[in-house]
């Protein structure tokens, strides 16, 4: 190694350390993430813009994946015990409660069945029509389904909240942790909604 090359390597090494420290000082000069999150609270408009941006960016890949998913649907029927108290927790029907702490979704739909309107947009997007039929959409957290997995899982669960009434809930998990559920709509309609998600 020539002296010039050695000097360049040494200079780069020292410059790297200085630059690392300079960046650390820059970051330390800012208030902490927690403080800034309090000082600059989220708004619905910000959530809407960010989730729309995220979905727009990755939506094209998702649409292709959903088209493949429905071409080779793998249905899985799970029958939970009646009265076992496993609610499925999509708050459809009398007495059910929504799980707490779910993040607000930012899902853009290309298809909503006629007559349905958005009636709630807190932890879930809930759509209902005048006849009381409902479906709900949420983005699941954690490990409900692997991101990018290539299948749809469909569950039928008897309604356990009101054990004397035989109501089946269809739960459709699609691709990247989006879950669509309904006690009132059939799987074909739910599939159409899922396919339309941008």
């Amino acid at each position, binding site marked *: 190694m020539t*002296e*010039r090359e050695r*000097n*360049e390597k*040494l*200079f*780069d090494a*020292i*410059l*790297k350390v*200085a*630059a*690392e*420290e*300079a*960046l*650390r000082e*820059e*970051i330390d000069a*800012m*208030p902490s*993430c*927690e*403080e*800034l*999150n*309090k*000082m*600059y*609270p*989220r*708004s619905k*408009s*910000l959530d809407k*813009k*960010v989730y*729309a*941006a*995220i979905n*727009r*960016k990755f939506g094209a890949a998702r649409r292709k994946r959903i088209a493949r998913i429905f071409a080779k649907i793998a249905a899985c029927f799970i029958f939970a015990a009646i009265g076992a108290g496993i609610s499925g927790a999509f708050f459809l029907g009398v007495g059910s409660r929504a799980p707490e702490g779910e*993040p607000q979704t930012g899902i853009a739909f290309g298809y909503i069945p006629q007559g349905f309107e958005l009636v709630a947009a807190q932890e879930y997007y809930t759509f209902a029509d005048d006849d009381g039929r409902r479906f709900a959409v949420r*983005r699941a957290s954690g490990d409900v389904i692997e991101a990018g997995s290539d299948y749809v899982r469909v569950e039928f669960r008897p309604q356990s909240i009101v054990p004397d009434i035989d109501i089946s809930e269809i739960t459709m998990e699609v691709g990247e942790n989006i879950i669509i559920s309904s006690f009132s709509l059939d799987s074909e309609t739910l599939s159409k909604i899922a396919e339309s998600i941008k």
Partner: protein
Amino acid sequence: MLEQIYEKYYGTMLYIAENILYDRATAEDAVSEAFIKMGRHVEKLQDASPYQQRAYIAKAVKTVALDFYNKQTRRNEIEEDFENFSASDISTDILWSLLRKEGYEALKAIVQTLPDHMKDVLLLHANGYSHDEIAKALGISVSNSKKRLSRAREFVKKRLAGKHD
């Protein structure tokens, strides 16, 4: 992952964007645009340290906010002039001086005076980001990122030589 990044750093991103744009609605637009620009590189941040994560996101949103500001004020973009660029050698004397506290502090001060478009590349590169990732964050090409890094090195060398004379 994207949602986790958003939920952790939304305040940081708004803080940076609003300090440049002075308008909440435009700052929100800049934050959402930054997510588009960062793209899938954001998902790689899960292995980065908190400092590295925050730095990458901060630089990305700063760049977008400045673009918005420049468009608002109709300022011209920074012209990349690499034609007169020439590499220079660093002397052994200067190197030895950098190993002493005073020389090292002088080096850090020079790094802080780098123009933003060079400094951001140098800082991100020194903290482990590839030129591909830097290009995404700053909205530039990979070759531009490499050129800016080279220019940053030369800028620092020349300033050091000037101080040493």
